[in-house]
Structures are given as structure tokens and as C-alpha cells.
């Protein structure tokens, strides 16, 4: 538990990667929710995802240890970092690129139909089409 201000400060200095990853998550999330431009939303989605991956990988990192590729026959676990987050993030990156491809193709088709990248405008045009 954190008791004093200095404690908090030390914690922030130790966990700076975690803080950065949360900031990236926040920027991406805000872009995804706030931006009216669809392409920006997709970029925001990617930034949000990489923020989470950075958080995950920073949890697996251990100071002074090496990448989990067995070298020189040393199999002592005290020499290597945790391989699990790397594997999970590998999966996550592939999921991100799939989602990005689908979103981009949706955007291209929407633009073809409505000639707009702005979600509000697209809704308005869609509603008019419905009423007509």
C-alpha cells in the first residue's frame, strides 16, 4: 500500500512504462470514442491495442535478464524473462491487424456509398435515405 507522497513518487519512477502504456491506452480510447473521422477511429483503435500490449509485456520483463531463447545450454529460469506475455501479445497483434483490415474495408465501402468519412454525416445521409 502507498502511504506517503514520496512513496507514490518512487512508485511512478519505477513503473514509468506502465504509466506510459495507460496514457497510450487513454489516447487511443479517446480517439476511438471522440473522433468523428472513421480513419482516425481505426488508428485510435490500434494505438489503444498497442497500449495494452505494452502493459502486458512490461509485466513479463525482469531487470537484467535476457530474451527467452535458450542460449549456450543454460536452462536456468533465472536467466530469462517471462515468455508468456510475449506469446499473448503475438496473438493480440494478429487480432489487431485482422480487425483493422475489416474496419478499413467497411470504411472504403461506406465512402463509396455516402462520400463521407464523418460518422455523423453518414448517419444523417442514411436517415434521409430511409425517409425518402
Amino acid at each position, binding site marked *: 500500500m502507498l502511504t506517503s507522497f514520496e512513496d507514490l513518487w518512487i512508485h511512478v519512477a519505477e513503473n514509468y512504462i506502465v504509466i506510459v502504456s495507460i496514457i497510450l491506452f487513454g489516447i487511443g480510447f479517446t480517439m476511438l470514442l471522440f473522433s468523428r473521422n472513421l480513419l482516425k477511429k481505426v488508428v485510435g483503435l490500434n494505438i489503444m491495442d498497442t497500449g495494452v500490449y505494452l502493459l502486458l509485456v512490461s509485466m513479463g520483463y525482469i531487470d537484467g535478464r535476457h530474451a527467452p531463447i535458450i542460449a549456450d545450454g543454460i536452462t536456468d529460469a533465472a536467466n530469462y524473462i517471462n515468455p508468456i506475455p510475449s506469446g499473448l501479445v503475438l496473438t493480440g497483434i494478429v487480432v489487431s491487424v*485482422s480487425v483493422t483490415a475489416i474496419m478499413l474495408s*467497411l470504411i472504403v465501402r461506406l465512402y463509396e456509398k455516402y462520400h463521407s468519412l464523418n460518422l455523423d454525416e453518414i448517419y444523417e445521409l442514411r436517415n434521409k435515405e430511409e425517409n425518402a
Partner: protein
Amino acid sequence: MLQSLFASDFIENFPLFAIILCLLCAVISFVLSGSGARRLTYVLVSVGMGLNCSVLLHNLITGERFTYMMGHFPAPWGNEIAAGLLEPAFALLFGVVILCSVAAGKSRILLDVRADKQNFYYILVDLAQVAMFALCYTNDIFTGYVFIEICTLASCGLLMIREGGKPLVAATRYMIFNLIGSGMFLIGITLLYGVTGHLLFPQLQETAAAAWSSGMYHGVMVVSIGLTVSGLAIKSGLFPFHFWMPDTYGTATPSSSGILSGVISKGYIFLLIKIIYRVYGLDLFMETGIQNILFLFGIAGMIIGSVSAIRARTITKMTAFSSAAQIGYIFMGIGMGTREAMIAVFFHICAHAITKPVLFLAGGALIDASDGKRDFNALRGAAHRNPQAGFAFLCGSLSMIGFPIFTGFISKLYFALSAFAFPHKSMLVLLALAVSTILNVIYFMYVSVILYSGKTDPARRVGFRQQRTFTVAVFVLVLVNVAIGLHSQPLTSLFEAGLDLFLG
């Protein structure tokens, strides 16, 4: 003889077989024609139902949960799937609903989907089904995430495969909401991994309980639980995030609407219940206080969803908003958290899963009988033009209202009974149930009276012969609905036993 057959250990392989078969069929459908892919999907879903049914019987006979290693390595190291009674039961239910929805909407799919893309529709159905099986059986939280993503992408595909601009807009909106949900779920499980260092449910539960009682990580764990739960709640369409629903369910081809509202959102809810019970444990979850938020949003969803449904001007939008209200019931039950409420939740998942596709499919057929117009004026007398669809819609409405002999009645009864046993807030629950039921009656009866009112030209009448598969598939669902409504006792005891196995 039969008993010893179903008691054999070989049956424990069946969940794996069902999953792999779905994957293989999805890949093979990639090079098949549309009708070939459709037949393959029918065969596959039927085989999958048989496999899940065998697993259910096996577990009923042995009376135990089993875990199944996916590979050569045991629990904390390798992936695992697990099956008690609830998992195969819900996998079976989802299989039945998917089969009936696809079969009933066959002729609409032929019209709505371009000829050279027919086989892709069935690939996406196969993939949605495999995702449902995996979400039901998984015993590993990251496998859950991967299959949630498959499910999201496949359901987006099922939505936008229909030609035209409106499905595209609806699919974009659906994807954005779902991606927000996925992102929150992912960061939730990341924080949980940082605190516990495990990904499989049994080990997670142990370490999470230890971390909670150590008192060091209360903040992180509450945030992580909150994000995981709200991610899944957004994806299944809980009240403040239900705005994508009318667009999505209103514009897709009726089979897709049925699958999306009846199966996919229920899959997320089942995973959520599983995570609450098997990862955090009910006691830890109750200590965080998140259940109260779910309870309140559930009640708000029940009322506001119904009010929006009354204000809706088309039949598909009305049915879609009614889905938001029904999701509200389910989350209210999860928020109550008592044993009786959970039984009611399972019943309501069941009732909604078998009723909503009937409403969407029959609604689609009625719209077709009214020259493709969706508003209530055009639908006047549609039930005379298409009597089978009209009768199915009426049965579905009665079940949603909670008319006796239908499943919807049983679930509402259990909700009311559990409210009496629920301390402090029983009046709130009963009041919400009463108000919501009255609102349900208003909009469903309004539509049913419209459907049966007015005169119609006998020449426009659609007979049984033009829609044989539709009638059979929809009435299978209605019969299942009535059967459960009349004989709810076996299912109640199944759910009770399943919940006991869930708690371990």
C-alpha cells in the same frame, strides 16, 4: 447398456471433436458452392448437437465435471477445456437455435446475399458456432478473448453481408461498440494477469483469492473486474450501450438478427457468468460491489428498453429494443447474485434465445408478405396474408410477455420468487418486473392486434407450400418453447445441479 455406453470416458473427447469439425467445415466451405456450404452447415450443426447431447448425458450419468487437456501438458501450463452440466446444455441450446434460424431464413438469405458470396454466409455461421462452443467450454481466460474476437468478426460479417448502405452503417457502429468492449476486456484480463500470473480458471481463482485477502491489490482487482464485466456487458448490449441494437438487428437478414440476438449476445453473457463464478468466485465478486451497478443498469434497461420499443415505428426496431429490455432482465438477475436469481437468469437466457429468433424470422416473413415495408400501417392484416408467420409471431410475443405455458412465464416466475428471497430490494425488483411486463403487454399486443386486424386480399396469401422449411424450423422453436414452459422441472433441476458443479 445405453447407460454404460454414455458413461465411457471416450465421450470426454467430444467437445474437442465438435470444435475441430466446425473449424474444418468452415475451411472446406471456402471452396464449395453456396448450396454445398449450406448442406455442410446443416450436417455439421446436427452432428455438433449430437456430440453436445452425448457430453450432457455423460455428465448427467457420472454427475461430475471433467477437464480436458488440450495437448500433453496439465493445467497451469497447457490449455484446457472443461465441461460440467451447464456448458454442454448451453452449447446444445445455441446449436439448436443456430440451426433453426439458418434453416428458417434460407429463402431470405438467397435473396439478401449475392450469389457468389452465399458460401461465405455459411462459413461465418460455422465460425460463429465454433466461437460459441469455445466460449461455452473454455477453461482459460485468454482462449476466451481469442474466441470473443472470432465471434465479433463473424457476427460483423453476418451483418454486413447483406447488400446496401444501411447494413454497412449498422456494421460499422456495431464494430466500434464491440471493439471498445474488447479493449476493456483485454486490459481487464491484463491487469488480472499482472496480479495473479495465471490464465487458467482454477489457478486464477486460487491466486485471485489469495491476492484479494493479502489486501495489497484491492484497487487493481476492482478495476480489473469492473473492466472485464463492463467490456462483456457492452458487447452483449446492456442498457447505456444498447444504441447499436435497433440498427443492427433491424437491418440484417432475419437469420442473422436471430443468431446475433439469440445466440451471440447470450454467449458473451454465459462467459461473463462463468468468469464471475469460476475466476473471481461469487464472494469476491460480491465484495467489490459491482453487482449493484449491474443490478441498477439491468432495471434501467428493462424499463427504458420497453419504452423505446413502444416508441419504435417499425416491427424490427420494436423487436430489437425489446431485446435490450430482455438483456436488462438477465443483468438484473446477475446483479442479485443469489442462487434462485441465477436459476431465473439461466431460464431467461434459454427463453430469450429460443423466442427472439422466432420473432425476428416471423417478423421478416410478415414484412415480405407486406411488400417489404416495415412500418405498422403496411403490416396491417399481415397475419392473414401469412398465417404461419403470424401465429409464430403471436406465440413469440406471448412468451416474451410471460404468458403461462411458455418459457418466458417460467423465467419471470422465478425472477419474482427470487425477489421474495432477496433482502432489502425485493420491492424494487417486483415493481420493475410489474412495470416491464405491463409495457411488454402494451407493445406486443399492439403489434399482434395490428397483424390480425383489417381485411386482406386472399390472392396475396402465402401458403404452407411456399415456405415449408421456414414453417418447420420456426415451429420447432415454438414447440421447444412450449415444452419447456409446460415441463420446467427437469430443466430446473439440471440448472441447479449445474450451478452446484459450477461452484465446485
